[in-house]
C-alpha cells in the first residue's frame, strides 16, 4: 500500500514539473493572443440604483488560470453570473465563446463548467443520479454520464457513497460531487467559486493539480477565491477587483513588481487600500476581553 502511494506521489511530482513547464510556455504564448474565449467590454451592472460593476474590460485566452479576487461585494460573483446568463440587465458587451448571454443563446454553456459558491444541489438525489442527470442536461447520454461520473467519483474516493443521498454527505463530499459535475462534459471554460471549500488537505492537493493539468491541456479556468495563498500558487494571471473595477491585472510577478509587496495577500491589502488589520484585530480583542 505504502509503495503504491509513494509511486503515485512520484508520478504526480514528475507530472507536476512537466505541467509547470507547459504552463510557463502557455504564459508566454499569452503575449501573442489568438481569439479570446471571453471578451468583456465596459461591463456595468446596477442593482437598485447602486452600481456593482463600473466598467469591466477583460479578455481571456485559452489555457489561462485566472485568479479572480477582490473583497466581499467587489462584484466577482456578479461578473461570473452575467457570463453564465444568470443575471441579466447589464450594460456593455459580453461575449463568451463567441456568443452573448444577452441574445438568450445557450449553446456556449455546453462548453462551460460551473462550481457555484454555495453548494446548491438537488440533494435528495444520490450522487450517481445527480451526475447522470447533470450529464444529460449537457447533452450526454445517460449511460455515458453515469459511467464517467462513477469513475470520476471513484478517483476522488467517493465510490462507496455513489448510491447514498447527497443530503447525508459532508461538506467536502458535496464539494467533490459539485466539482465532478462541472467537469463531466469536458468543458473548455471552468468557472470555479471557492472550489476548495470543505475539502481536506489531500483532496485540495488533488484538485489543485487537476486544475494545473486542465490548464495545460488548454482549458481556461476562472478561479475566484479568498484564499490568497492558493490563488498565488495556481494562477497564471491574477485579476483584482475592487468596487466594481479592475484595479490590477497581470501575472503574480507583475503584480509584485508593481506594488513591491511579498505576497499576494499583501498586494491585495495594498491595492484595496486596506492597512488597518492590526488595529482592527487589537480593537476586537479588547472588546472580547471586556466582560
Amino acid at each position, binding site marked *: 500500500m505504502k509503495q503504491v502511494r509513494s509511486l503515485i506521489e512520484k508520478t504526480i511530482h514528475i507530472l507536476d514539473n512537466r505541467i509547470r513547464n507547459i504552463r510557463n510556455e502557455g504564459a508566454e504564448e499569452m503575449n501573442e493572443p489568438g481569439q479570446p474565449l471571453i471578451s468583456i467590454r465596459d461591463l456595468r451592472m446596477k442593482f437598485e440604483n447602486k452600481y456593482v460593476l463600473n466598467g469591466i474590460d477583460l479578455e481571456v485566452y485559452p489555457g489561462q488560470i485566472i485568479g479572480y479576487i477582490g473583497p466581499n461585494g467587489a462584484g466577482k460573483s456578479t461578473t461570473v453570473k452575467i457570463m*453564465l446568463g444568470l443575471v441579466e440587465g447589464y450594460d456593455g458587451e459580453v461575449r463568451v465563446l463567441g456568443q452573448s448571454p444577452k441574445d438568450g443563446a*445557450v449553446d456556449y*454553456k455546453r462548453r462551460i463548467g460551473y462550481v457555484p459558491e454555495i453548494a446548491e444541489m*438537488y440533494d435528495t438525489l444520490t450522487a450517481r*443520479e445527480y451526475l447522470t442527470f447533470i450529464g444529460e*442536461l449537457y447533452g450526454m447520454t445517460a449511460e455515458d454520464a453515469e459511467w464517467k461520473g462513477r469513475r470520476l467519483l471513484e478517483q476522488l474516493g467517493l465510490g462507496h457513497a455513489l448510491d447514498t443521498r447527497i443530503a447525508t454527505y459532508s461538506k467536502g463530499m458535496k464539494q467533490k460531487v459539485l466539482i465532478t459535475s462541472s467537469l463531466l462534459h469536458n468543458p473548455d471554460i471552468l468557472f470555479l467559486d471557492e472550489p476548495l471549500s470543505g475539502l481536506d488537505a489531500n483532496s485540495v492537493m488533488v484538485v489543485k493539480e487537476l486544475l494545473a493539468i486542465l490548464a495545460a491541456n488548454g482549458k481556461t479556468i476562472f478561479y475566484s477565491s479568498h484564499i490568497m495563498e492558493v490563488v498565488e500558487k495556481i494562477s497564471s494571471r491574477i485579476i483584482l477587483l475592487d468596487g466594481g473595477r479592475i484595479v490590477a491585472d497581470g501575472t503574480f510577478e507583475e503584480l509584485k513588481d508593481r506594488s513591491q509587496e511579498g505576497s499576494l495577500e499583501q498586494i491585495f491589502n495594498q491595492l484595496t487600500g486596506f492597512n488597518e488589520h492590526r488595529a482592527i484585530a487589537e480593537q476586537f480583542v479588547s472588546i472580547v476581553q471586556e466582560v
Partner: protein
Amino acid sequence: MKNYKSLLVLDRFRGLFEKAGVDYAVLRRILQVKLMMDARRVPSFMSKNRKHADRQEAKESNNFLGSLWIYGIFGAFSTPFILLGDNYIFQMSLLFGIFMFMTLTALISDFSSVLLDIRDRNILGTKPIDSRTISMAKTVHVFIYMLFLTGAIGIIPLVVGLLNHGVLFFAVFLLMLILMDLLVLVLTAMLYLAVLRFFDGEKLKDMINYVQIGFTIVITIGYQLLIRLFDFVNLDVAFQPKWWQAMIAPIWFGAPFEVLLKGSRDPLYIVFTLLGILVPILAIAIYIKLMPSLERNLQKLADPGERSGKGGGGWKRFLARLLPVGRQEKAFFRFAWTMIGHEREFKLKVYPTLGFSLIFPFIFIFTQLRDVGLKGLQGTKLYLFIYFCALLVPTIIMMLRYSGRHKAAWIYHTAPIAERSAIYRGTVLAALIRLVLPIYILESVTFVLLFGAAIIPDLIVFGLAITLYPVISFAYLSKALPFSEPFEVAQQSEGMRIIPLLLLLGVFGLVHLGATFVSYGVYIYGVILLILNTVTWRRAFSSSAVK
C-alpha cells in the same frame, strides 16, 4: 429510474411542446428527476437516522399524493350542487367558484415553493438549456400536481354528474376542469410576476403569507354566504345573464353546460362559453411568452432583500423587560419572537390557522344573528364563542419545534444552558404574546362593542384560560427543543394529535358556560385558572425537560 405514469401521459403531447419551442427530451428528464425528488422528501431525512438504510432504495412515497383524500372529501361536500336540479348555470358556476378557490389556495400555499424555486436557476440555468424549456418544466411540474388535486376534488362530483346527467355532462365538466386549472395556474404565476417586477423578493414572500390569511378568511366567509344564499334563493328562479357577469370567471365555466346541454342560444351564454375556452388558452400562450421574464425576476429572490430592520424590535425589548422571568427566559423570548417573525415556513403553516382563529368566533355568532338580531346579542351567552379564537394555539405549539434551519440547533447544546425549562418557557411566552395576544385583544374589543361592558370579567377569565392553554398544549405535545427539527418530519399524524387539545378547549368553554349559571361562578373559575396558571407555568416546563 422510475418511469412515472404522468410522464407517459405527457408523452402524448410531445408534438405540442415541440411546437412551442421546447426541448421535449430535456423537459421530460427534468420532470422525471423532480418527481423523484418529491417522492423522497421525507424518507431522505429518516434514512439519516437509520444506519446504512439509505443505501437501499428507501421506500418512496409521495407525501402530497397521500394527502389527496382530504381534497376528495371537500369534493364530496360540494356534490350536492350537482344534484340540486338542472339549473346548470347556477349550480355549476357555484361549483366552479368553490373549485377555483380551493385550487388557488392549494397552489399558493403548497406550490409556491415550486414556482419560486431558485435552486433551479443555479443548477439548470447554467446548463445549455434554453429558458423556455426550464420554465415549461416548472409549469408542467406544478400542473401535474394540480391535475391530481383537481382529480381528487372532482372525482366524486364527476361520477355523480355522469350518473345523473349523462356522458355529455361528464365530458363538458372534465374539459372545463382542465381549462380552469390552466387559468388558475396562469393567474397565480401572473400575480407573482407582477409582485416580483415591482417589489423585491422579501416582499413577495411576505405577500404570500398575507394572501394565505386573506384566503382562509375569504373562503370561510364565502362558504357561509353561499350556504345562506341557498336558504333564501329559490333555485328555480330564472338566472338572468348580464354583461357584467363576464367579469366573474366561474360563470364562464358554468355557461357551457347551458349552451351544450340545454341548447341555450342566449348570446351572452355563448360569449361566456367562448370566454371559458379562449381565455385559459390565451392565458397560457401569454404565460409561455412571459415565463422567461418571471424566471429572470426570480433572481431577485436570491439576492439579499433590502431589509431596513435597523435595530428594530422595540416591542420585543420592551416586553422582555416587563416579563417577570429570568435572564435566560428573556433571551429565549427575544430569540423566539424574532424567529416566529422571520421563519418563512413557520408562517406558511401557522398563518392559515391565524385566519381561522380570527374569523371563527364571528362565524358562529353570525349564524345565530338571524334569530336574535344585532341588538339582541347583549344578555346572551353567545360571547363564549370567543373561545374559538384559541384554535390556533395547539398548531403554534406544535410548529414551534420545526425550522427550515434546524441544524443551527447545535447552539442549544454548546451554549451553557443549565435549565432547559428556560428555553421552553421563553419560547412559549413569545408565541403567546406575539401571535395569540393580538387576536385576543382584537376579538375582545369587538366583543365588548357587540355585547356590552358587562362581559369584561368573562373576557378576563377567558384571558386566563388562554394563557393556561399553551402550557397544557406544550406539555401534551412536544418536548423537542424549539426550531430544532426540519419541517419535512412534520407528519400528517401530528395533526391528529391536536384533536384532544381542541376538545379540551371545548371543555374550557363549557366549564365557563356552566360557571355563568352559578353566582360568582365565573369569579371562582377565574381564581382556579389563576392558580393553575401559576403552578403550570412554574412546573410544566421543567418536568418536561427530559430529552
